[in-house]
């Protein structure tokens, strides 16, 4: 499995207790980041928008990585996101087929960057869910919901099995037919 860039973390935090509030409410967030440090930072970013608390007057109680429960099962993921384009904020719903949620989230970030030129800081994931096949909305995911799926591989990529065996000149033309 290729190493994925994004990991899912559960961050739990609260404001620091003060004389006004002895037991402040504890908030929990699930978010995606490349590492734990960034996850904590993103946690405060979101919490600042929801409550009047900053990192300086709050504390992170726990941060755990959430791992995929069934990485060998293919699932359809629906991702709801809010992103900032050059002209304003928009909501979007995207669907991906993948074996892990982290893989689907990485696909989403790559697709948003390529299709809409939106980078990581400008995307907020509102919600993710695994969608059963009946409820998928996008044709590009629905076309793989075929139990007897069959298609030819049209183009054969001829390459040496390791980068070490790469040569600039070849003796004969490669055969590209599968």
């Amino acid at each position, binding site marked *: *499995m290729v190493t994925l860039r994004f990991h899912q973390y559960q961050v739990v935090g609260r404001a620091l207790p003060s004389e006004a509030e002895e037991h402040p409410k504890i908030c929990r967030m699930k978010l995606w980041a490349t590492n734990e440090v960034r996850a904590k930072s993103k946690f405060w970013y979101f919490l600042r928008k929801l409550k009047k608390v900053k990192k300086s007057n709050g504390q992170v109680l726990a941060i755990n990585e959430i791992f995929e429960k069934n990485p*060998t*099962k*293919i699932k359809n993921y629906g991702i709801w996101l809010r992103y900032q384009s050059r002209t304003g904020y928009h909501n979007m719903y995207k669907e*991906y*087929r*993948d*074996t892990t949620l982290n893989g689907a989230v990485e696909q989403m970030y790559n697709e948003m960057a390529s299709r809409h030129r939106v980078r990581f800081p400008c995307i907020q994931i509102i919600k993710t869910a695994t969608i059963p096949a009946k409820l998928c909305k996008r044709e590009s*995911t629905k076309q*793989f919901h075929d*139990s*007897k*799926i*069959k*298609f*030819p*591989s*049209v183009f*054969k*990529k001829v*390459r040496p*099995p*390791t980068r070490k065996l790469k040569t600039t000149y070849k003796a004969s033309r490669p055969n590209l*037919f*599968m």
Partner: protein
Amino acid sequence: MPFKRYVEIGRVALVNYGKEYGRLVVIVDVVDQNRALVDAPDMVRGQMNFKRLSLTDIKIDIPRVPKKKTLIDAMEKADVKNKWENSSWGRKLIVQKRRAALNDFDRFKIMLAKIKRAGVVRQELAKLKKNAA
């Protein structure tokens, strides 16, 4: 020219790049346009890009995403291992592996055998030439 080898559930493929190079795997499901869920009796089921797979002629009969035991039984029934080793592609790979694993004494023995075979061929050729002349 129509296509003969399709990406489908049950197609046996050879991994031609990466860590799993040289392994025979079965396509168990299709993730999307570029990736397949791939399984073999001695590896954890995982996803692989089609660019890393070379499709073979062998296809086994399995339901979509079978249990490991079902997969192993289906592979036994279709006799994938023997079919592969008797196919010309499979035989070529076995010969390549043997040649790569030779030690110097083996290479010496091969040299002697090659000289002997060439000698026999030349004798026959000389006989045919004499009869033609």
